[in-house]
């Protein structure tokens, strides 16, 4: 248990924990933000009150996420100072500025208009309200832009150089538009949107399975599916581009992602390992299942590699990532989920084209609806495993090939970090449990159709939805499935 007295390891664990847990909530707010823009736009265009009730219902989930996102995000910002002071000092010139940009461009916009979006229906006119919804979505997604810009710069530092232990920026726009930036921003943008779509689709599927407000939730289900048609395949392609840039800029990370210990020369086909047990000490895989000649196709869509794939042994052990197994399996988990989600999307489209989502038939698609329910959480797992690949794979560097992680940590007593890490662990477990408990309660209660629709004299309930329809399920939770 040496790590309990190692400030660097504890600080890394604390940052990893806070980052992984924090990431879950903004994922939904950025993605659902866009969904709310679509839904409210449809309401303004069609004046169909169903879309209004949708906007209210999904906004409630948005609100639940936002506060927790803020609460879990603040610890991360402060950790740069408390736990990573030498890093902060060295990169403040660029990295610090970008954190400031995020707060001023993104957070403030989102936080200030969120109140109007959630509670302002009767206080502002529909146009201003819609503008607020749009600004909230823009704010949330600008956050993705700046955070991914900052992190991409840590992966491929550009626009300046290290002088006396500090990064001096020569060209800010080059630093912002660093090699990783564009594709990483796009990859994360699509990830939050895709995850949110499958959460919305999954929750809608649950209502359809439960025979509750079927016509109403068919709408949200179909909108989520329709947007996913574009998003899910595009994400796989952008994911491929992201791996390609790792291949060029961070070969050690690629070697860890593929558990490749020996260099594969250019001009030849190469095997791709599907599953393996990497052994860091012996510098080999204890066992592996390989698909012959597949790696060239995966990286470059052709049989022979045009550039060598460097093996981990090309680097000294202290210059390459150590947690090869974690990186290797995280990568496979993320990619696997990407394909599962895209596959489900294609299957569902087929059903849709065959007319099986008509109001009479949609309730018969029990297995498909169950599949949507069970894939709903997968996007979150893909996002966290993706970040693990990205940031554990970057080790042993915080600023790639410029500043080492061990030199980045504050010199503070390990006991401090141990106590705060324990505190975060306990708090976050409580937080996740409470979130799931109250989130599922909101879902079980369902949308409220008794809310007054702005701009209508007499509010009539929408087509097949009557306020009295929902009878609270009093059975124990286990029996409700």
């Amino acid at each position, binding site marked *: 248990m040496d790590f309990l007295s190692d400030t660097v390891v504890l600080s890394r664990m604390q940052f990893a924990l806070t980052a992984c847990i924090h990431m879950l909530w903004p994922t939904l707010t950025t993605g659902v933000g866009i969904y709310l823009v679509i839904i409210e736009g449809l309401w303004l265009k069609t004046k169909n009150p169903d879309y209004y009730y949708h906007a209210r219902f999904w906004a409630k989930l948005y609100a639940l996420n936002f506060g927790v996102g803020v609460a879990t995000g*603040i610890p991360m910002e*402060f950790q740069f*100072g408390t736990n990573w002071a030498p890093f902060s000092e060295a990169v*403040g*010139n660029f990295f*610090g500025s970008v954190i*400031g940009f995020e707060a001023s461009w993104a957070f403030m916009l989102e*936080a200030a208009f969120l109140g109007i979006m959630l509670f302002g229906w009767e206080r502002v006119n529909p146009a201003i309200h819609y503008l607020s919804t749009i600004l909230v979505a823009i704010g949330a997604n600008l956050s993705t832009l700046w955070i991914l810009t900052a992190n991409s710069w840590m992966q491929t530092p550009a626009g300046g150089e290290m002088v006396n232990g500090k990064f001096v920026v020569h060209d800010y726009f080059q630093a912002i538009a660093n090699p990783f930036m564009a594709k990483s921003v796009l990859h994360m943008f699509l990830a939050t949107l895709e995850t949110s779509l499958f959460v919305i689709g999954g929750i809608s599927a649950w209502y359809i399975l439960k025979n509750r407000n079927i016509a109403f939730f068919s709408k949200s289900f179909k909108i989520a599916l329709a947007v996913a048609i574009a998003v899910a395949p595009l994400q796989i392609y952008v994911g491929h581009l992201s791996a390609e840039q790792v291949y060029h800029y961070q070969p050690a990370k690629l070697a860890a992602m593929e558990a490749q210990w020996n260099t594969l020369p250019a001009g030849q086909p190469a095997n791709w390992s599907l599953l393996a047990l990497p052994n860091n000490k012996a510098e080999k895989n204890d066992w592996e299942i390989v698909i012959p000649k597949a790696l060239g196709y995966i990286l470059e869509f052709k049989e022979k590699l045009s550039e060598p794939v460097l093996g981990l042994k090309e680097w000294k052990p202290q210059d390459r990532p150590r947690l090869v197994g974690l990186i290797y399996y995280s990568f496979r988990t993320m990619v696997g989920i990407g394909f599962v989600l895209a596959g489900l999307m294609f299957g569902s489209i087929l059903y849709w084209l065959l007319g099986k989502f008509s109001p009479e038939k949609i309730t018969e698609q029990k297995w498909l609806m169950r599949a949507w329910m069970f894939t709903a959480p997968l996007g979150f797992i893909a996002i966290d495993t993706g970040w693990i690949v990205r940031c554990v794979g970057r080790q042993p560097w915080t600023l790639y090939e410029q500043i080492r992680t061990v030199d980045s940590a504050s010199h503070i007593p390990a006991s401090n970090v141990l106590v705060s890490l324990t505190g975060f662990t306990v708090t976050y477990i409580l937080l996740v449990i409470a979130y799931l408990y*109250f989130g599922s*309660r909101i879902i079980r209660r369902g949308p409220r159709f008794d809310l007054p629709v702005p701009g209508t004299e007499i509010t009539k309930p929408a087509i097949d939805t009557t306020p009295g329809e929902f009878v609270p399920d009093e059975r124990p939770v286990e029996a409700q499935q």
Partner: protein
Amino acid sequence: METLSYFLPQIWFGILALFLFLYVMLDGFDLGVGILSITSSTEERRSILMTSLSNFWDANETWLVLMGGGLFGAFPLAYGTILTALYIPITLMVFGFIFRAIAFEFREEAKRKLFWNLAFGVGSFTAALGQGFALGAVLKGIKVDPEGHFIGGNWDWLSWQSVLVALTLIQGYVLIGSTYLIWKTTDELQETHYKTAKIAAWTTLLGAIFITISTPIFYESARNRLFQQPLVYIFGIIPVLGILLISQLLTSLARKQERAPFVWTILLFVLTFIGLGLVVFPYIIPPEITIYEAAADPSSLVIMIVFIGFLIPVMLFYNLYQYIVFRGKVTGGHYGE
């Protein structure tokens, strides 16, 4: 170039002071209301208290996020050194924030509210306490080596002076929270907070007097600063203005005015802030490191003025706008839908 490396850090000191002030004022009443909620007699009252903040608290807290980001970018050395030195109070504050935020999210949904009431009240109190310790420790001074890196001990932040500052800050938050509630509520609830405002005005005054007198006695650097020409005149005026404002505040409370107490309290905060700013300036890590030593490169400071500075009026405008949208009294205790 020389003047630039002189002016730019000063501009950023000013911008960060503005962010910090907006934070202390706005989240100050949030935290104050949170602390007051501990003493609320009924669930209904507590609900109204939380409803009065529900639209605003996250934007208010964002001023601190903004201040943190700005400090990180403009004075990276100060960001690292101060936060490292204040590991424990900052962690206290962060946990306080987490519990307060989840109370906002979950209390409304919960059937049994006790835990979430505590999360809200104690979370607000803890956050305020952490901030008070941090402020006290920075005013007292942080031990650094010639490069400006922290070399002090783990518990340096804890002293009778920082305890005094923390208690006074909490009183100040309770005061501004009470006067905010006087503005936003009616009837019995308003009555209660006329009383709490009055008590808090006196306790804040007491704390402020203690701090004002003890600072020049115990700190040589502050003493030198206070008796410097021409600052000595300003420091002479501040306590006089302070007494004047407090008496105005007490008068407005006695006359049961609804908005004036809040305005007087804000002016008191402004005054205190100017006083503290003048004591600290030009140091960013008192008592050794100045803003010029801790500043990022001039090019960074310029780019940050372009990317952040020009947004300040926009941010102020839309924050003000949301306060206008949600103006008026809070009467019901349901903010969920």
